[in-house]
């Protein structure tokens, strides 16, 4: 079912050949149609993407000045500094919790929402419009709004809780390290649910209706219908969207920064906000690049393992 994952891991057409460039050259002569289709996107990457990525990688191995230019070769200097950093271990743990926590929650919360919204009911169009709102709002500004909502005195949340008599306390949501971290994850999930739900909806709509017909004749109940038919059909899209969501969560900046800037004392930082502090605040751009590179290496390994594990699960 996980078509792409499977193919990445073993593509017989490719593994049979030794040198990739030679085989590309050979195939270009014999079978150039797919390459033609790739050309537009490749040109786009060459023009705009490759140089910035390469200069980040080079920066990780260079001494940099206070505006981020590589000045001279620095070997592993930046990485040594990074390992010595007092907070780096905490940041790593926080990043892991932030990324996997928020992505898992998003998936778990979005799927039921997509199933509900995929049905017909009065007001379905309105419900879908409301669903889209968090996605359509500028994220940096909605995160600032959340920060305002969470404020102990000025915020709407305590006001709602006090009015509903759930608590009479004025909780300073973003001042307690643990509470603040939960709030940050909450807003990250809040901001990703629309995207995830829309992707699930697209997945649900592409399930051919006739697969349910046979089941109905067999008298399968709704649960079995969901578990045995809907879920397997969604698996392909879920693997892709989850993989990308994890990668994106590693670069998520516009939730944490407007909300807490990593406060209190680096307890709500993830690797990107910390990297930003290293680079743009402490002006240690080299260390920032090194952290970006380390994250990249991790993600690359993770992506390969991710696809491989899925493959072995399939048997």
């Amino acid at each position: 079912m996980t078509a792409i994952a499977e193919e990445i891991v073993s593509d017989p057409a490719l593994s049979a050949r030794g040198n990739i460039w030679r085989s590309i050259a050979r195939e270009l002569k014999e079978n150039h149609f797919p390459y033609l289709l790739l050309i537009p996107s490749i040109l786009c990457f060459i023009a705009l993407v490759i140089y910035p990525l390469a200069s980040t990688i080079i920066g990780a191995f260079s001494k940099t000045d206070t505006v981020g230019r590589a000045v001279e070769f620095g070997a592993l200097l930046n990485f040594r500094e990074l390992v010595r950093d007092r907070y780096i271990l905490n940041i790593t743990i926080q990043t892991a919790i932030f990324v996997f926590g928020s992505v898992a929650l998003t998936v778990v919360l979005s799927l039921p929402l997509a199933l509900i919204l995929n049905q017909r009911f009065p007001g379905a169009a309105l419900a879908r419009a409301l669903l889209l709102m968090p996605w359509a709002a500028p994220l940096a500004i909605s995160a600032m709004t959340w920060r305002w909502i969470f404020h102990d005195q000025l915020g709407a949340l305590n006001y709602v809780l006090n009015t509903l008599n759930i608590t009479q306390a004025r909780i300073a949501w973003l001042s307690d390290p643990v509470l603040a971290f939960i709030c940050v994850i909450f807003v990250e999930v809040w901001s990703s649910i629309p995207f995830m739900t829309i992707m699930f909806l697209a997945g649900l709509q592409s399930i051919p209706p006739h697969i349910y017909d046979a089941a109905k004749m067999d008298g399968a109940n709704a649960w079995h219908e969901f578990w045995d038919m809907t879920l397997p059909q969604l698996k392909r899209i879920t693997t892709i969207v989850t993989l990308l969501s994890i990668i994106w969560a590693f670069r998520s900046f516009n939730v944490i920064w407007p909300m807490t800037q990593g406060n209190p004392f680096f307890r709500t930082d993830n690797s990107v906000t910390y990297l930003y502090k290293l680079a743009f605040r402490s002006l240690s751009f080299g260390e920032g690049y090194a952290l970006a590179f380390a994250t990249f290496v991790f993600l690359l390994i993770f992506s390969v393992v991710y696809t491989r594990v899925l493959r072995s699960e399939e048997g």
Partner: protein
Amino acid sequence: MKAQKMNRREMLRLMALTGAGLATAAYVAPVAASQSHTFEAPNVAPPSAEKVSLRLMVMDYDENMKPDTQAVVDAFNASQDEIELKLEVVSWGQGHDILVTQISGGHPPDLCNVSAQWLGEWDAIGEVLPLDDLLSKEFLANFQPSSIKAFTNKKGQLVGMPYFLDPRAMFYRKDLFDAKGLNPPETWDDVIAAGKALHNPPDMIGYGQTFSAKSDALDYWWYAWFGVIGGDGNLSIWKEDGRSRLAEPEAIEATQWCVDLTQKYKITNEDYTTAGRDEELQPLFYAGKLSMLITGCWFPTLLKKNAPDLVYGLTMPPVKKAGMKPATGFWPDAMIIFKQTKYPKHAAKVLEFLFNKENRLAFAKQRGVIPERIDVGMDPEYAVSDIEKFFVKSLETAHNVYETPWPETYYQTLQLGFEVEVARAVAGEITAEEACKTSAAMIDAANGF
């Protein structure tokens, strides 16, 4: 299994090849860029009969910054036909990153107002143009000597013009103080007495402070420091030899004061590790829920807009003991010319226009900022209210927090290092002494001791 091995090898090879190719490309480009700017002759004559186009970037202080500055730019463009000045307005929160990107990309604006902190960073890598040869002595004689001195670097060069001087003061709820017969918060004891009498959360918070690395870093620690040292003492946080003074007893005492306000007397806001001065504390004061807040000279203008009926009083930041001379400080901004400009002389002309008496008087009145031109400060049109007189007077002795010569590592070591340590001390995680000693050691190490 075999297939997988092949794949990995191929992928690595592909990555290595692409990497090598890109490495060459990536190195060639910045080198070419930096060379072109090094070898460019300064002040190239503009193509004849064409106007020189210059970019003026301003960081906004308030919503009117754009129309106000646009009017000045239009007036400048109308006053001569040699230069076409273009205005770009940038939000403060984004200004530093945009400028870093533009400097590093070889495309900074010609002129820009920047925090003295950033000025220090970029002067250290030779990106800021010294102004001594471009501005006449007669012109510079118009300015408060202390404000000019504030932007003179280690080499004795003037690298920026004072653009926004913002001395700080204690704002307190005069009505509440009078009702309870409390002394104005001029000493620490006054603050404690008033805090105990007025602090009654959530309806009223006694004293506002924050250590969140937002706004201007560390300002609430500085106010405590001013209180310990006083107006007659040495307010520098650096020793003669360049080492940090943060491990000295005075610094520990200042930190302890911040800790005690929260931990011992319990008269502060609860969100002292996350609040922003501008985002949360000032609004709390507008809402009438905060009785004492130290903030800057821009605040009366905001109070007039946000809470016109609030009755408040003004004093200098409180001192440790009665009888000490109070002190305050300012976190100045400067207008600078970037060294990458192609037309330094033309940019200097813009600078002289921006800093003429008429424009600076208008700016001071629009922003509620303290004038750096002597003639503006004395102009009857400027100092009309007691508030303005108070701040003009306080500027005479105010300490420039960034200092001259400022250490290049200010931002790094103070903001990210010390402020976090102070925050942890105030939160009760470590002692004030630990916070100060760890930070001093860290700062000295960063400065090569």
